[in-house]
């Protein structure tokens, strides 16, 4: 064995050719806190990968600030190895990540290195493609309108704040209000949506605790969701450079699948921490600070990232990239700098409120403040039929909610509206990690808005829902649930069958 190794090495040394040519070279003139200042290399590209030759080996860095006489670069490796006067060489390549089908099911860092101890990602390097982290978003001509839904499996969202494939929908709320839970439920629900093509999900964890990321991986693995999911992890312990690059890496992975004609979903959890890591880097690079010490291009940072989410035209392969960015607010302040920026960039927001969360209304979606600007075009006909009335009923209920405490003095009509509103609110409550398939959402909301729950006590609404779904699965699978799933419609015949099923079920409930 050792003989073979030595022979191989000998051959390599014999065949080694060293041509002496003039090369471009730079020198490290400053290095601290993951940032290096380089003199020379005047023809460096923006976002080009440079290699610092240190005594302990090569360390890559990213050219960020191209100044008159020097380059400000972000060190992507072990920055403690870098010393003054180390030589820097160009690679001619902009920062990119290796992507291919094999990346699905893996946990990677923003540079595409595996973090899950499952060995190399690409056994065959030819199958992998290099995708740049920074890329221009698809043009207007390459796009088309959103028309297919992303079912989250959450009744409140799928009915009233629908998300379409290619949309950018912000999830915003205070800490601990269930933002990540919504994102996870959406991933979990993709296995339960056979009416549409399977989405590839990319979960980007930025500045989170390693324990939380491990928990998320476990949940997804247990549910079998890792078969179509990839996780890009830049935990709190990772350098700010990696946290800054993580969403761009996730987006590049999503773009690969979009370009292949598939539907991809990318979740950025969360962009508040991303903005903070970018602020840290910008201050270290001595860029001028602006409001709240964020650099002037913080809006552009997020807009160029989210603009890459798109629904491509048929000529471009019909793929899509849906983005679900998450923003954490402080004490519900949606008018802070970063939240307003991202609200204005996205096509709508799902606003989660702590008050609702503590009242037991989970998911704690504030339906009044949440909006989806393009998603209704993607909603199925069946869902549209039930959702319109649901929105109206709940809006009326919210107006009358103040009178609930002296309900005995109210007229019958108002009392009925309040009672129905209470039942509908109860119906929208859902446990964590229990997404409901779209056809089941439709039938249960149909029952709610058509008064089949009016005489059911509030504390038995959940029981009614579970038992009715069970009843339909056993007795009317093909005629009701199967029919809605296939046609995405609630036509007259299905509606008739559903009504008769409801009447029959109510007799035995």
């Amino acid at each position, binding site marked *: 064995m050792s003989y073979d190794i030595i022979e191989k090495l000998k051959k*390599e*040394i014999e065949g*080694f050719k*060293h041509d*002496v*040519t*003039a*090369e*471009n*070279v*730079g*020198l490290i003139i400053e290095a601290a806190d993951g940032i290096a200042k380089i*003199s*020379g*290399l*005047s023809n460096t590209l923006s976002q080009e990968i440079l290699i610092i*030759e240190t005594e302990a080996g*090569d360390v890559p860095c990213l050219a960020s600030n191209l100044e008159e*006489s020097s380059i400000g670069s972000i060190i992507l490796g072990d920055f403690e190895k870098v010393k003054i006067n180390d*030589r820097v060489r160009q690679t001619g390549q902009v920062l990119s990540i290796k992507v291919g089908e094999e990346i699905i099911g893996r946990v990677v860092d923003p540079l595409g290195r595996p973090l899950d101890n499952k060995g190399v990602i690409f056994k065959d390097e030819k199958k992998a493609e290099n995708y740049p982290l920074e890329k221009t978003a698809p043009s207007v001509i390459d796009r088309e309108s959103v028309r297919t839904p992303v079912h989250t499996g959450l009744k409140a969202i799928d009915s009233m704040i629908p998300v379409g494939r290619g949309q950018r929908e912000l999830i915003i709320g205070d800490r601990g209000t269930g933002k990540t839970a919504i994102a996870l439920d959406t991933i979990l629900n993709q296995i339960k949506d056979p009416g549409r093509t399977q989405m590839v999900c990319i979960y980007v964890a930025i500045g989170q605790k390693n324990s939380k990321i491990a928990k998320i991986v476990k949940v997804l693995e247990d549910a079998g969701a890792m078969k179509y999911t990839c996780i890009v992890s830049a935990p709190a312990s990772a350098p700010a450079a990696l946290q800054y690059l993580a969403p761009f890496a996730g987006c590049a992975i999503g773009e690969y699948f979009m370009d292949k004609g598939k539907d991809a979903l990318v979740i950025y959890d969360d962009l508040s921490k991303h903005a903070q890591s970018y602020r840290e880097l910008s201050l270290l690079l001595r860029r001028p600070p602006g409001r709240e010490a964020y650099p002037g291009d913080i809006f552009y940072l997020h807009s160029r990232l989210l603009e890459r989410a798109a629904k491509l035209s048929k000529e471009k392969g019909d793929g899509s990239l849906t983005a679900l960015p998450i923003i954490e607010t402080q004490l519900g302040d949606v008018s802070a700098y970063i939240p307003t920026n991202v609200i204005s960039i996205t096509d709508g927001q799902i606003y989660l409120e702590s008050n609702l969360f503590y009242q037991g209304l989970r998911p704690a979606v504030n339906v009044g403040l949440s909006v989806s600007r393009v998603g209704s075009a993607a909603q199925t006909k069946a869902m549209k039929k039930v959702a319109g009335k649901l929105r109206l009923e709940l809006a009326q209920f919210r107006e009358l909610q103040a009178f609930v405490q002296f309900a005995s003095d109210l007229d019958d009509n108002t009392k009925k509206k309040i009672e129905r509103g209470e039942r509908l609110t109860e119906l929208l409550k859902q446990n964590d990690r229990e997404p409901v398939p779209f056809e089941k959402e439709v039938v249960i909301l149909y029952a709610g808005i058509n008064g089949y729950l009016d005489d059911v006590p509030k504390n038995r609404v959940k029981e009614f829902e579970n038992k009715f779904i069970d009843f339909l699965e056993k007795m009317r699978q093909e005629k009701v649930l199967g029919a809605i799933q296939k046609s995405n419609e609630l036509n007259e015949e299905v509606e008739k069958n559903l009504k008769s099923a409801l009447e029959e079920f109510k007799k035995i409930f």
Partner: protein
Amino acid sequence: MKYSPKSYAVALSSVLEKSKEEKHVFTNFLKTVKKNGDQKILHKILDAFKKIEIKKHGGSHIKIEFAREPLKDQLKSITKKFKSQDWIETSLNPALVAGVRVTIDGEREIDNSLARKLHKLFK
């Protein structure tokens, strides 16, 4: 106000161009640097000044590093290759193991050292 090394160097160079009393200019320059408390950046100022002067005369800053002390003939034959306006600086760098490395204006490099060859071989 804090002045950058480049500003000092540009000012010194343009004053020297006009004045014939070099010694007087340099003395005044050093007094100014001291008055401003910028002695710490003096080496940076001189580096910048060197660059400006070399450029002004149409030359380049050539840095030649040898792994071992070169023979006089060797040094002569290498320095002959450059123009008279070039600023040639030679130094010893044992880290090169063997051979020679030439750097032009801190940007272009011809590296014929053994250290570079080994680095390329094991890359």
